[in-house]
């Protein structure tokens, strides 16, 4: 391992500083057509009519596609994991979020493509929209998704569950119960390069797809599925991403470009405007997280009950996976022997949400760490000592039943305290990750220490 700890130059650094790095938008192939999309102007509506004939007859227009042109229109980002698909590539009969693509045009210029979009005739019948996840389960909430307002495919459940230990006993034995509600909001990732792809139909019948995706093989699978072609018909060229931060995990432009390239038999490019990037690209999800901790007066966290609502937007995409990561991290970097977690992926009429820097985890870390401070405040404890005391150690069992071999919470917490100039008592300063003994192995942790990961 010569690279670890060594100062290596960036392999792409010289390209970057000389401006020679070729981003997707910088690739030049002759006679490229431009793409524009007809997008929903409603949050929730039935499409009562759509007529693209005027647009088709316009000068410079080379291809138009609607849902009828997509071999497999409805697909899901988690189909590879056996979750059924729920999202149309192009809206079919209804729209569920403002900006949802309905039809797409490839034309000889960006202007001609936009003019064609404006010439498309569409009418809607508006429906009541749902924006607040907290109202999604109300009896009078509009039902906006074919599966109901909650994602139903967590095995036999309609939510992600974690059960560990005896949660009721923990709350019976608690000296204090500390509650908190945390609501991290949606964030647009704002990569400096907006979504873009260029698809070139090759003489061999293959498609070369220049993509800004963060997830090459995954995007390849998505395009192949919608097109119903084997993977060997697609040659993806990626690896140069002008910033992603999670915003380029969902496949945004590639599939529509590929279909248009096939139909027009010409290279086709779609570069989103900054406005599109802000309005219709997937954002980090908003969450609603309720924590309830059973705490002893010595500052041990005996148990935690959690209810989480994850705003998935109009379709599932990766949200069920993000919530699973969230669930696995909901005890934070601390050992909590008794857990009960119920997390729901909730549909709303927002743009579908996705990853951003720690998919699902950042939201729960924010909640947990804020909650730790709240516990310290309520109990009159030092927040650093509270963390160090409850910190994961070798032999502790995580929320999802993993016996920890190399936790680093203590080391990281001590280093952080050091950096910000916190003076800790000798007892806490001398802590390490070694297995619990003596005062650090109270009664309530003994049982879980013997679980060896089996009982969770």
């Amino acid at each position, binding site marked *: 391992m010569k690279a670890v700890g060594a100062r290596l130059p960036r392999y792409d650094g010289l390209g970057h500083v000389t401006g020679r790095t070729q981003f997707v938008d910088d690739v030049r192939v002759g006679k490229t057509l*431009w793409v524009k999309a007809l*997008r929903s102007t409603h949050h929730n509506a039935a499409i009562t009519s759509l007529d693209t004939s005027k647009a088709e007859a316009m000068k410079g227009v080379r291809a138009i596609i609607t849902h009828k042109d997509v071999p497999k229109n409805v697909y899901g980002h988690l189909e590879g994991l056996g979750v059924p698909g729920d999202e149309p590539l192009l809206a079919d009969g209804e729209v569920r979020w403002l900006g949802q693509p309905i039809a797409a045009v490839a034309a000889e*210029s960006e*202007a*001609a493509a*936009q003019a064609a979009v404006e010439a498309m005739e569409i009418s809607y019948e508006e429906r009541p929209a749902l924006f607040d996840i907290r109202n999604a389960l109300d009896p009078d909430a509009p039902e906006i998704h074919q599966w109901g307002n909650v994602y139903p495919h967590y095995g036999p459940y309609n939510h992600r569950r974690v059960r560990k230990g005896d949660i009721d006993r923990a709350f019976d034995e608690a000296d204090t119960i500390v509650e908190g509600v945390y609501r991290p909001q949606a964030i647009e990732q704002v990569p400096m390069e907006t979504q873009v792809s260029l698809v070139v139909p090759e003489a061999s019948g293959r498609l070369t797809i220049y993509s800004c995706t963060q997830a090459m093989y995954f995007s390849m699978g998505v395009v192949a599925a919608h097109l119903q072609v084997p993977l060997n018909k697609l040659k993806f060229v990626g690896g140069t991403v002008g910033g992603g931060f999670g915003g380029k995990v969902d496949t945004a432009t590639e599939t529509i470009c590929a279909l248009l390239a096939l139909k027009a038999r010409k290279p086709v490019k779609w570069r989103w*405007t900054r406005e599109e990037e802000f309005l219709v690209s997937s954002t980090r999800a908003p969450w609603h997280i309720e924590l309830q901790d059973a705490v002893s007066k010595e500052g041990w966290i005996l148990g935690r009950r959690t209810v989480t609502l994850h705003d998935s937007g109009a379709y599932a995409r990766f949200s069920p996976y993000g919530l699973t990561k969230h669930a696995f991290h909901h005890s934070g970097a601390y050992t909590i022997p008794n857990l009960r977690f119920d997390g729901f992926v909730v549909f709303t009429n927002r743009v579908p949400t996705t990853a951003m820097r720690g998919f699902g985890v950042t939201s729960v870390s924010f909640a947990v760490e804020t909650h730790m401070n709240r516990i310290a405040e309520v109990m009159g404890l030092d927040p650093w000592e509270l963390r160090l005391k409850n910190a994961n150690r070798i032999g502790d069992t995580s929320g999802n039943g993993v016996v920890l071999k190399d936790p680093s919470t203590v080391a990281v917490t001590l280093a952080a305290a050091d950096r910000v100039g916190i003076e800790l008592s000798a007892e806490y300063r001398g802590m390490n990750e070694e297995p619990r003994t003596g005062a650090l192995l109270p009664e309530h942790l003994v049982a879980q220490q013997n679980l060896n990961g089996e009982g969770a």
Partner: protein
Amino acid sequence: MRATALMIQRMTLDVLFPASADEAATLYGDGEGITVFAGGTIILPEIAAGRLVPERALMLHKSGLDEIRTDGDRVLIGAMVTVAALAEGDDPFLAGAASQVADGEIRRNATVGGNICSPPGDDAQRGDLGGALIALGARVRSTGAGGERTEPVEDFLAGDRAGRLVLELEYDGFERRTGAHSLRRRHAHSYAIAGAVACSRADGSDLRVAVTGVGPTAVRCRSVEQSRDPADVLKDVQPVDDAVATAAYRTAVLPTVVREALDHLEHA
């Protein structure tokens, strides 16, 4: 959803390049069907995105309106003087106001004429130089239907600016006390949340106060000028909501911003 495409090809544009101020005035006529193009910092993205398709564009960059001159005590600023030139100019008060607009790169395109003619923005309030110009007691010389006229900046801003071609601004050079304060986000090119400027004669008389960034144009604050009470600013303007700040926030902070500006003037 608004159209967002590049519309270069859709522009069947007639672009005019007047070589003098007189020629510009003649070509402009009563302004019917003419779109004035100054630095382009507001208007070019609109044209490029196809949201604005001018019939005829009047490009002013060769019209000789880009000079700052003095005539006796008067200072005359051509409409095409860039905000960067003002920021580096001799008048420290104007330079201060100019150096708050956008960032250095945008200021090299942006013009003073474009600044006081900027149409109300959807997401931010513009026209920040208007405040400083009002406080200086500046006048605008413009042309259009009915010919040339010169009027105080505050009247020009409060009136219907459409149909006027701004040629020049002028103010009287005398010793002043000045004060300014503006509240903005850290990013150098973000718009002001609220700004206040004040000028008086060296002896403190003839106080002139204006605020910017809280509504579609800069506004002269006559109530504050009379009472010298910063709270009275809310009698002069009603702050608006936009992407930069809420009306409620602006309303809450504006008196403090005005107080800061008056304090600066007091201690100048």
